[in-house]
């Protein structure tokens, strides 16, 4: 029987992990919500952002968080370009399926370029506060994990406010709910879809930077992430950002607590068990309500 302090420590770790998962999955759910695009390359962009943060830190010594000033706008533009130049060329009837193939190849290209530019050597950002931690009611909270969690919270809150309280957000939500109707009331849905994609990719810049603070990175790392992230957005309800956030929290916490009694291998399968159960019992997801209808 694990001690109370270990359980509490695991809950703290689970919350931090869940926050990071929520941030990483947010973009995926946006793409699917706006355009029915299954974006396999999302995690490759995460690793790309992590590499950019690592590279900038190695070359100039700047704090990786400062790279956000460059990577967030850069990824936004790249997202808009990717949507306008590549994804719009796919036929609407087969969009979802073909987007898997298209973004799969984008992921391979990113992985290849990272390997070419930085080699397969595993890298880690060396920060003065990498191993620093704070005491929190008897549990230890790592500073880098706290920063990553803060980034996730800020990015998700920003996303929420943008979606709820800006004209762009309203237009994006309208496009998500009913594209034709949105077009009829005068929304330029093509442009909105482009911006929506850019927004999703901008979250990848934030997520990748958060990831870079506390992980060893290498070009093929993205394959380890795409599975759990896909599971999260399906459980959360495809297209629902709050659904993905709740699912990410729940799964992160479950994984962390299961590890106390079961082995790591079993704890990791929680994603796939949840994915399977969701598809079998409630294919529209547990937290998002009807498929992609709500934000």
């Amino acid at each position: 029987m694990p001690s109370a302090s270990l359980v509490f420590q695991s809950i703290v770790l689970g919350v931090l992990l869940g926050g990071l998962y929520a941030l990483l999955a947010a973009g995926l759910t946006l793409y699917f919500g706006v355009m029915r695009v299954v974006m396999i390359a999302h995690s490759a962009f995460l690793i790309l952002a992590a590499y950019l943060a690592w590279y900038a830190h190695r070359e100039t010594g700047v704090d990786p968080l400062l790279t956000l000033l460059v990577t967030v706008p850069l990824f936004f533009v790249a997202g808009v370009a990717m949507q306008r130049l590549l994804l719009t060329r796919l036929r609407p009837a087969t969009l979802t399926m073909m987007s898997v193939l298209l973004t799969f190849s984008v992921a391979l290209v990113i992985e290849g370029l990272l390997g070419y530019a930085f080699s397969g050597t595993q890298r880690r950002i060396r920060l003065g506060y990498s191993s620093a931690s704070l005491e929190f009611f008897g549990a230890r909270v790592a500073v880098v994990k706290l920063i990553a969690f803060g980034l996730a919270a800020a990015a998700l809150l920003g996303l929420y406010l943008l979606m709820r309280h800006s004209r762009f957000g309203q237009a994006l939500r309208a496009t998500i709910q009913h594209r034709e109707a949105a077009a009829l009331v005068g929304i330029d849905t093509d442009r909105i879809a482009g911006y929506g994609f850019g927004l999703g990719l901008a979250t990848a810049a934030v997520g990748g930077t958060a990831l870079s603070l506390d992980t060893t990175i290498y070009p093929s790392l993205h394959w380890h992430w795409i599975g759990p992230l896909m599971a999260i957005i399906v459980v959360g309800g495809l297209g629902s950002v709050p659904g993905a956030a709740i699912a990410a929290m729940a799964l992160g916490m479950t994984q962390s607590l299961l590890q106390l009694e079961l082995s790591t291998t079993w704890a990791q399968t929680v994603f796939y068990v949840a994915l399977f159960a969701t598809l079998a019992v409630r294919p529209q997801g547990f937290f998002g309500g009807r498929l992609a209808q709500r934000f």
Partner: protein
Amino acid sequence: MSTTQRLSWRVAALASATALTAAGCGSGGGSEDSPDDPITIGVSLPLTGDFSEPGKGVERGYKAWAKIVNDKGGLLGRKVELKILDDQSNADRVVSDYEQLIGRDQVDLVLGPFSTRLVVPAARVAEEYGLLFVEPAGAAPEVFDQGFKNLFYAAPAVANDHYNHLADYILALPEAERPKSVAYAAMDDPFAQGTAYGLKDKLEKGGIKTVVDEVYPPNTTDFGSIAAQIASSKADMVVGGSQYQDGVNLIVALQQLNYQPKMAAFSTAPTEPEFAKAIGDKTEGILAPTGYTQHADYPSNKEFVEKYTEQFGKAPEEDEANAYTTGQVVAAAVEAAKCASQDEECQQKLVKWLRGNEVETVVGPLKWDDKGRPQSAHMIQQWVDGEIQIVLPEEQKEADLVHPKPKW
């Protein structure tokens, strides 16, 4: 471009064209053992794909070996020529590569590839043709369970014996200083797990309690929970059966939880050149087993380090040294048996000689049991004063083992 330069270009082009034609005609003609013919040695290596980093290291080691041998006049007075194919880290390709090298190219000798996953299928081909198979990279127990009769692993020890010197050291400590409880975390991989469990078996026999025993899959990226269990157990010692990224991630996760063991040992990660860059100044006192060090004062190692550095611009690491050792072992057998060709009699002489003799190498003297397992142990290194130094065994040590380890 000057005239002489242009001329030399032409000569080079002509020469290579002639060489190509000669090679074209030569194949299928069979190889006669004339004293002027080079000894051709076939290797397949993962130059691309998953194992390309270590694969290229092994390639450099083989090339350094061939150059040093040739500079001294070759083997049995004949030059050594390497024929290296790329198997793309693919177990099917490695089989067809060795089939091609042995069957079509009629190489005189073969050397092993990198990684257990490729060594086993490659060894099967060599065994089928009755060729001696010395390899630089199969430390996992399963390599030696296949019943190979011609296989020799050219390194000091198999995975389970990597921590032997450390086990002896711990069990010899006075009761009061000896760690009473140990936490083990190992990757689900025959090599990594083998190292940790070798130590676990010995310490448990010596009465030291195991308080955590975690196995994690190779794709684990989050080590928070494993670290939390280890920290909560307050074990006196932590042992990681790790490769690189998991070892680093686990160490940082343990540091984040402010866990301060009296002893910490991790395989592979601490000996990599990237390790200190990843962890910074928090490496002090971390122990690791290693099969090779540039500082070992075996005579051939000094020569290897010097000439390798001349050739490649930096000092060799463990992968390069393993390949070089493989070359040395084969060379010793060839010199003793006075033959180097595919015919059965010669290959059997080589195998028989290695079975009964000891070979001086860059990792020290090596000899093998009847399954090809080397009969030594790895050295133990420790981060002392910001540098990784040999602390065990006594004869090789550069610094005293620091125990208990300083806080990290």
